Each structure stands twice: as C-alpha cells, then as structure tokens.
C-alpha cells in the first residue's frame, strides 16, 4: 500500500517510530514542535487513517465558575436570595418576586427546587412561605462553589467522594443553559503507533515531489518534468465562515415577493404608534381587554403624541361614543378619552398601518400589504417572542364581499402556504364583520391556523372617509417560518449564535428538498 503523507504527519510518525512505547500527547507535541492546531490536525488525520491509537491515562475534571456562577457568588444564589427577600418581606408573592428580576425563568426554577426540597410553599394568591430549613447538602455545595473564587480551577478528582457527588448532581440538575459551573474534562492521553500498520520505509517520501503550486514554480518553469505530490482526498477541507442573509429574513423576502406578484403594494410605518391608530381608529373599545396595561407596551417618555388629526379624531370619537354621526351604528356607548387616544405604544398589530393607509386616501381599486414588526406583551418562551413579524394587508375594491374575502384567503393558502385544503372558521375581531379565521392543511403537520381576516366594519371605514368595502387580512408568518426552518423554539429565530444559524440554514435546505419531492 502506498501512503501519501503530509509533512506534518511525517514529523509525528517519525517521532513515534523512535518511541516504541508511545508518548504522552503533550510531550509528543513538544517533541515535534508544532502549535496545537497543527498537532491536532496531524494526529487527527493519522487517527482517521487508523495508524495511530490513543490510550487514556487519566481523566481530570477542572471545575471553574461561569459568568453566572461569578454573579451568584457575589450576589448570593437564587435560593438564598429568595429566602432572604422573604425574610425581609413576609408578604412577598411569586409575581412580585418574578417582576423584580431580570430573568424570571431562573427564579421560577429556584422556587420549584425549593418547593421540591420542602423549604418553600406557595399559598393561595401566590404568597410564599418558608416551611423548612435550608438543606445542609445545598449549603455544603454552595460552600464548595464559594472556594472557587480563590482557588480556581478545582480538580474534581481531588475532592472527597461525597463532595464530588454533590457538585456532580448539582451540575446535572442545573442543566447546560445557564450553568453556574464549567466542567472541563481533560484527558491525559498517550499516543502510540499501531503495531504493524506501518514500517519506517513508508515514510521515505520522494524529496523531488512538488508541494503547492506557487507563482515562483510557474514563472521559473521548475514544474517541467517534475511530479506534484498527490493530496489525500480523505482530509476534510476547512469550513469557511457563513456569509449569508438570515434565513428568517429570506423567508420574509419570499412572502414579500409573493404578495407583490399578487398585485399588492407595500406599506411601511412607525413602530411607535399612538393608541389612536393602533386601537381607536380600528374601533377597538377603549375598555377592551386588549388595551389593558397587561396587553400592550406603553412608551415611558414621551408618553403622548401632541396632536391628533381633529377631523378624523372627531369622527372616530362619534362612532365610539355612539353620539353624532355613527353611520348606522349604536357605537360602544362609552365616553371617548382623547388622552388615552394620544398615548404612545409599541405597535401591537400591523392593522395600524392599514388604518393609516385608509385615512390617507388609498387608490381605489387598491391592494396593500405590510410585513410589520409588532410587539407582544407576554412572558417569553418557546412559542412566544417579544417582537415578531406580521403580514397584514387590505383590498379596497367596489364589490369586495365575503366571497371575494374567501377567494383571497384561498389564494394565500395556495400561494403563500402551499396548502391545498382550506377551512374557514367564524372568528371575532373588533374591527371586522364578518370575521373569519383560515385554517390550512399542512402536508406534514396537519391542520393549522394560517391567519385571520374580515370585511372592515363601517365604524372603521366611514370615519376614515372610505365608502368602498375593504377586505382586511393578516397572516401568522412566524409559525410558517419556524416550520420551514426546522425550529421548535421561536427564540432561535432571533438568536445570534452562529451554530443556531448554521442549523437553521441546513434545515431550510432539507425542507426545500422535501418540498421539491412533494411537488
């Protein structure tokens, strides 16, 4: 068998031939005088070729503090902190506690643990009560962790078996995410030549073989009559850095192009919006739960826009209060608070853009859409992100009706979601009547909600000066994007981790393949 060795491999092999019993990895690297990258490469190749074997001599686990751990040692661990808080304020509730910290998830976990250990109980109304002493095992664990400030890293194997167990189970329970401790397992290994796999003669490389093609070789003509050293095709080529657009934005781009193709014109608008455009102009009553302090984000400063367009505002006021020109409506029969209308918030729905478009005199017939960043007042978890994209739009056309609304939604189901089966469900939105939810059958995942739509109510259209019927629609594109990108956690859409990005890009490639087969 003839071998093709890279010069780095040859250096390692030569050193090993002179050490029949093998050599500790770190000593071998010193002997061949390579940096750790080169050495890893060379030994990696040799192991892949099955010429070199390694024996683990000893495992050492180095324990050090993570950034979170450092913080805990300084400020106290969440469990300690919770109990201290509770001592200071015995009427403390779970809710208040969660609100006072940056990461409520961590608090929830600590509370869960304390409950499990019987230290803490939650009374009705969310009040907390200490029911038992702080467990000595946890105290001991935290004691060991605190020694790390002075004495880091600590070698796990040097600890007593009891302490080793304590740290080990502590780490397992914590999980990887926001760990307190970093465990670096270092193996001390010996590398040796596989018996009989190779003889020293195999290393007798011809010295006249040419390495890389260089400008000098070409210009001097020294390549004439010479042979180039063949490369090993088993060596994996280096991976370049990704340089691509973000897969979620690419998905948005596809949707945008699709909508433009269908004759829609794009609308843009502010993310800081007044309640007037986000709510009042859409006939959402001022007392509606969706306008509650627990449902939208308000801006602290500035709190309000200074002026409202008095013409539009007075007509909107009339349909809300049910007094004056109401265009055949009873209205909400509630006083209309102008100060509330001026309050600034973070846009909660793309429909605000449609309202602005209608008020600014849209072309008739006209079709408009927006891919709007909207904000949701919710605890962040794997299906809820604080901000998300919404596809929204309107069709302004004489004769637009419930049937055209269904036609449009069927078109979206086919063109945007690639679905063939559609079901229309009655729905409720304060600004449309009739209202419909469209559900589509996804080839793999079954029935899912694609979006909501309806005909704008006269109470929305007439005050904005529109007498033509208007179809309003919205599609939940974040869900479709998650499916496309193989994500089960919506937070990953906004992750900065290059590993996560890479895996999104790969899933998209796979889903494209699957989709092509489906076609």
């Amino acid at each position, binding site marked *: 068998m003839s071998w093709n060795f890279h010069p780095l491999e040859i250096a390692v092999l030569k050193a090993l031939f002179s050490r029949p019993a093998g050599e500790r990895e770190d000593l071998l690297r010193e002997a061949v005088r390579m940096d750790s990258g080169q050495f890893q490469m060379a030994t990696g190749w040799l192991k892949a070729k099955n010429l070199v074997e390694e024996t683990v001599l000893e495992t050492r686990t180095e324990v050090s503090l993570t950034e979170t751990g450092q913080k805990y040692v300084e400020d106290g661990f969440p469990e300690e902190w919770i109990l201290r808080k509770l001592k200071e304020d015995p009427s403390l509730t779970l809710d208040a506690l*969660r*609100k006072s*910290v940056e*990461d409520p998830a961590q608090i929830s976990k600590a509370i869960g643990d304390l409950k499990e250990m019987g230290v803490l109980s939650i009374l*009705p109304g969310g009040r907390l009560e200490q029911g038992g002493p702080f467990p000595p095992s946890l105290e001991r664990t935290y004691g060991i962790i605190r020694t790390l400030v002075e004495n880091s890293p600590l070698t796990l194997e040097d600890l007593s078996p009891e302490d080793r167990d304590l740290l080990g189970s502590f780490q397992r329970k914590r999980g990887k995410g926001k760990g307190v401790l970093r465990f670096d397992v270092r193996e001390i290994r010996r590398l040796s030549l596989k018996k009989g796999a190779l003889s020293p003669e195999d290393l007798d490389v011809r010295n006249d073989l040419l390495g890389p093609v260089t400008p000098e070789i070409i210009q001097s003509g020294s390549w004439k009559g010479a042979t180039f050293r063949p490369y090993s095709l088993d060596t994996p080529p280096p*991976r370049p850095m990704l*340089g691509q657009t973000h897969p979620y*934005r690419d998905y948005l781009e596809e949707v945008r192009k699709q909508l*433009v193709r*269908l*004759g829609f014109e*794009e609308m843009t*608008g502010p*993310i*800081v919006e007044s309640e007037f455009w986000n709510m009042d102009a859409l006939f959402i009553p001022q*007392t509606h*739960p969706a306008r509650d*302090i*627990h449902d939208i*984000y308000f*801006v*602290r*400063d*500035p709190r309000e826009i200074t002026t409202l367009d008095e013409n539009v505002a007075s007509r909107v006021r009339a349909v809300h209060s049910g007094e004056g020109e109401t*265009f055949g*409506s*009873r*209205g*909400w029969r509630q006083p209309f608070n102008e100060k509330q209308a001026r309050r*600034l918030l*973070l846009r909660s729905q793309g429909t605000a853009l449609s309202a602005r478009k209608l008020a600014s005199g849209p*072309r008739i*017939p006209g*079709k408009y859409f927006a891919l709007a960043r909207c*904000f949701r*007042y*919710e605890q*962040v978890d794997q299906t809820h992100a604080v*901000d998300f994209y919404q596809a929204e739009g309107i069709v302004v056309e004489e*004769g637009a*009706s*419930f*049937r*055209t609304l*269904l*036609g*449009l*939604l*069927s078109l979206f189901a086919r063109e945007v979601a690639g679905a063939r089966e559609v079901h229309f469900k*009655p729905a*409720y939105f*304060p600004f449309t*009547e009739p209202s419909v939810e469209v559900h589509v059958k996804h080839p793999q995942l079954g029935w899912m909600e694609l979006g909501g739509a309806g*005909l704008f*109510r006269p109470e929305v259209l007439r005050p904005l000066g529109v007498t033509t019927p208007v*179809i309003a629609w919205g599609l939940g594109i974040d869900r479709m994007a998650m499916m496309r990108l193989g994500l089960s956690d919506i937070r990953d859409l906004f992750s*900065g*981790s*290059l*590993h996560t990005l890479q895996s999104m890009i790969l899933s998209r490639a796979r889903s494209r393949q699957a989709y092509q087969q489906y076609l």
Partner: protein
Amino acid sequence: MPTLETTFKDLESLTGMTLPADKLDSLLDWVKGELKDFDLKTGTLKIELNDTNRPDLWTVEGIARQLRGGRSPSGRPWEEIFAESKGVDPLPSIRVHPSVSRVRPVIGGFIARGPALGEEGLTQLIQTQERLSELYGRKRADVAIGIYPLRTLRFPLLYEAVAPDSVTFVPLGSNSSLSLRNILENHPKGRTYKNLLSSRDVYPVLRDDSGTVLSFPPIINARDTGEVSSTDSELFVEATGIDSGRVNLVINILAANLFDRGFTLTPVTVEENGIRTTYPRMEGPEVLVPADLPERITGEVIDRDLFQRKLLDYGYVEVEIRNDGYQVRAPFYRDDLLHPVDCVEDFLIARGYDTFTPSLPASFTSGKEASSREPEELVRHLMTGMGFQEILSNILTSLEKDTQDLGRPSDKTVEIDNPVSRQFSVVRSTLLSFLLSAESQSSRYPYPHRLFEVGEALEKTSGSPSSVQEKMLFAGLLSHPQASFSELAGMIFEVLRTMGHEPSLSPLESCPYIAGRSGSIQIEKNRDPVGEIGEVHPEWLERWGIRMPSVLFEIDLSKMYPGLYIERK
C-alpha cells in the same frame, strides 16, 4: 380570551344531542369557540371563546343554547322563565339609597328556584361568575356579581354607601368580624380589588331587611349569607356596577343560564328615587337590517326567506320581512348587535362559511415594494458579498445592554413603561450590543467571524416635549485573531463607495472603542457623520466575555437617505 372548562357529559346533556367527539371542534364554529384540550380519560374540555363581545357564549349553558339554535337546554319555552312568580305582587325589591350614586350606582337582581344546583352546576355557576366579573366586568370595575342562598334573606334589601368603619361583618374566608376598611386593607380579596374603592370616602354595602349584611360589593360576600353549596335550590343573584346596560346583560345571562339548568325565576324590583326598574329586563335589542345589506356583504343573491329562517335558527326571537329590509329582534341574553352587519354575520355563520363559493377580487392592481426598503436591501446584498453573515435580533432589550454594557449614557434610550421583564424593557437604540452578544455566544464557531444586522431602532430626542425618532441602522462586527480597524474600514468604505459615496473618517472618542482607534464615518465633507467604526477595547470585550480581537461599525441609513425614511419619524 375567555377559556371555559367543562365536561363533555355536561355539554352533551345540556345540548340534548349526541355530540360526535371528533367533530366537536367544527361544531364549535357556531359559537366562535376553539377546542383547546379534550382529555378523553376524564372527559374534561377546554374551550377558548373568541367573541369578546358575546359574554353569553363564555358559559357552557350559553354554548349549549346557541348550539340548540337559541332554545333553552331545559327544554322549556322562554315564556316559562317567570312561571313561579305569576301573580306575585308586589315583587321582592331592593331599595337603593342615593348615597351609592357616587360610588357604584347600579344594582339589579332576581330570585331563582329549582332543583339543587349539583356539583357541575355549582362549578359552572362559579366559573361564569368569575369570568363575567373579571373579563366582561373588567376585574369587577364595571360589573361584580353576588350569589346567595335565599334561605334567611328578608326582603326588601337595602343598597347604600356607608362610612368605611361604620359597618362590620364576617366576610367569606374569615372567622372574625371586620370593618369595611379592615376588609379592604387585610382580606386577600380586599387587597386585590382595593383600587376600585380606595379613592372613595364611602363604601357600598348590601343588607337585608333585618340589617344582616349580604355583601360588600364589589369586594366580598358575608360568610353567613353568601356561601352557596351544591345542595342549594333557592338562590338570590345580584350584580352591581357603573353602567345599567352592562349590569342588565350580566343579570340576563345568569337568568338564562339558571333557567337552562331547570330553575324558574322571580324578578326583583329596584326602587330608586321613586323610580322602579324590574330585573331581568327581557326585551332583546331590535335592529333594522337594510334589504340590500346581506347581498352587498355576501356578494351573492340572498333569498329573503332563507335569511329569515337562518336567523331564527340561530336564536333570533323575531325576523320580520319588510319592504325596506328585515326588522329583527335578538334574544334577551345578547347585547352585541352594534350595526346591521352584525346580523348579517350571524346569517353567514348559521348558513355555514364553507357554503359560500370563493371568488377572486376582480380588479387589476400592480404590486410594488416600498421604496424605503431599497437601501436596506442593497446593504444586505453587499455585506453578504463581503462574506458577512446576517443576524436578526429582538428589537426589545435591557437598558444595561443598550447603554452601560457599551459604556454609553441612557438619555437616548426609549424605555417601556410596563415591561414584562427587565430583559426586554427598552427599545434598542443601537445594534452594537446584539453583535457583541452574538459574538460572545459563538466563540466555539470557527473564525474569522463577520456578522452584520440591518434593522429598526429608536432614539429619544431631548427637549420638551421629547420625541421619538425611528432609525434604520446597519451595523457589523469583525472578529478573528488579526482583526483590525483598517480591515473593517476597508470593507465598509467599499460598501459605501458601491452605494455612490466617497467616505472619510474623522476622530471620535467613544466607548466601547480603544482611544485613537475609532472614528466617525462621513459620506460628505461638512455634513454630519452617518456612522462610526472602532476597535473594541479589551475592557469591553471582557465585559461581554469575548476573547477575540473585534472591530465594530454602525451606520444610520436614515441619515444617508433622509427622504426615504420620512414616514418613520
């Protein structure tokens, strides 16, 4: 949105139909409900009700009634609702003292007699009470409900407002007699709803003719008069609030639900300043639906008899066909018809959405992307060409990340008044923190790292009043063992040149950069800079947990193309 928990058995027995378990979800289309959970073992259902304007449907009785086309699950015609009180004169009454007019002016109620509630009936009654007062009554501010066993109550009742310390009674959940003030301060319910009364100098109280306290609306019932059990068969129900329309609707829904469960009712008269009102008021709202409206909305020819029949099937009490349209009357437990279009939607639901043939919009319109997106698209294109990977971040972040962690002041950051958590409590004013955070999460990914992001950010401009400026930022990071200012500057200059500018740098001293290794980017001499670039100081790298030399830049596209972003401001 209201979510209802009930059992399949209860729903089935109330509808009087055999419900196909697998078709339940589509059956719920009729009530705009969505089956969230169906536990086959226990038979428990969770239904989300989407119509925030029809509280009658937030109850299992209401759902069953709607599924039966408005007929009562009790199988009796609605005329029998007051069967037991025929000829009762005078009706039991509540006297309203003028003192409540400033606190909580409206009260209504009725008496219900029937078979014992039973466990499921009681559970549902309590759920209904909670849901109506929390959601429809907006956490009891608009409407609160009290339910009592009739047993020892002596009519007439007296509803009045009194000084906080003048009345004491034993509230539910307590064993001692407390003053109204004490309840508000110390009782759990008192603390929860304190804000509804704390600014008042008198508090409402409801007592019977012998002076026994029934309740302290809208806070809590008395323990001895206000605890209902599953064996109770005679109840007194009242609701208090601000607006008589809302109070009446809640009373009507509770009346309908109890009738559905086999009760019959005695109305109660409310006497105030010599004016007598009797609850429940049974007239449903009337609407005239213009003759052409159903056709305009549906987009097809609608048979007038069909329209009439379908509305009657959906529970409407009367639908009269007239020359100018349809005169319709909704049932007494509904108050959601604001405009004739609402009746047309009921017709569509009754006929079934899937019975309409979709047709496409008829007009041709030409599609177009917003021109303000052009610069954004161009830089994204150019940056990927330079080998930069795009990232996408949340627009909300924490004040620390947006300011302190970059060594920058916080006066330009737009804060949220009511954040859910500190982690997402401000709107970003820069993308730099996201790039640093991305880099710190990616240290195990092979180098070099080249990252960029384009997106919206906000800036608060000082002044009185202050204002918010929306920006379109474009920022990037370069990170690898030899990463340097000049490497990144070279790349960015090339991008700007491709966009038609001749960029230059001027000195800039700013965190988180190394002094003397950062600059402002200008695209025209004597004009304000459009951005900045600099090598990140190791002190700040350390703060972000980054161990690799890194260089950052940020450019405000809205400064480069002020005309395009005008509507963002």
